[in-house]
């Protein structure tokens, strides 16, 4: 049982790395989704304004 801390350190580090990678993917995804939605809204608003002007 003397080397149990090494075992938990190895598992801990592995899960921390995987957790932060998943977190970074989900954060980047949320940022991109909101950016794309903003641009889409702006484009649709521009189209509607253009139609009204015509």
């Amino acid at each position, binding site marked *: *049982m*003397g*080397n*149990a801390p*090494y*075992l938990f*350190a*190895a*598992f801990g*580090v*592995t899960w921390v*790395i*995987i957790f932060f*990678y*998943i977190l970074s*993917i989900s954060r*980047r*995804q949320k940022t*991109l*989704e909101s*950016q*794309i939605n903003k*641009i*889409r809204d*702006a*484009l649709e608003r*521009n189209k509607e304004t253009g139609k009204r002007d015509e």
Partner: protein
Amino acid sequence: MTLKGKSATIRTLELATCVVMLAALYAIFIYAPIEKTMGLVQKIFYIHVPSAFLAFFAFFITFVGSILYLYKRENKWDIMAFCSAEIGVIFCSIVLITGPIWAKPIWNVWWTWDPRLTTTLILWFIYAAYLILRGAAGENRRSNFSAVFGIIGFVNVPITFLAVRLWRTIHPVIITPKGINISDPMKLTLILTLMAFCLLFFTLLVSRIRLEKMRLDGEEIRALSEDEKTERNN
């Protein structure tokens, strides 16, 4: 495939990964016997070996994706190669961290310049360089440059795998031409962990590819809106 369809695929993969991963953790900590000489620290093997296998597999996907990109000139292969390389570096980092954590109580040193350890470190540097250089390369040359790098870089994968056979090494050899040199419960635990890590790998790969495609879509929409603005101003 629609965005909704892709989300369903990712959700199914996530669920399967969670279930198999829990079963694998049960097998590692409860089912698998404690090795007589090394004790509990031997259980690091159950994350170290699957991580190494998946790092090699990820770099193989990068290699295949790079060849297909150069041959067919389709962006999807370039995206697949890049995303796989990124995940491969993550798994290779896990290998390089868990290895020394196992080595300290067993070999009494954190690191030694053993052929297997050295070639794995070189492998990590090659693909870390791939990611850094891809980020630094210009938009028009990025894909070609990455594809060539992804093909040449793969040369080190078989060298790393065969290092324990080509040179004298102190690294344990578990997989031999005769089979896997461990007891049956350990073998079963390793297979289960390998399955869990494979599912994790595919979940990460599908999510990362989706993110990359979304980034490219975003760039395209942004370019379109810029064009529209310029047209209006003219």
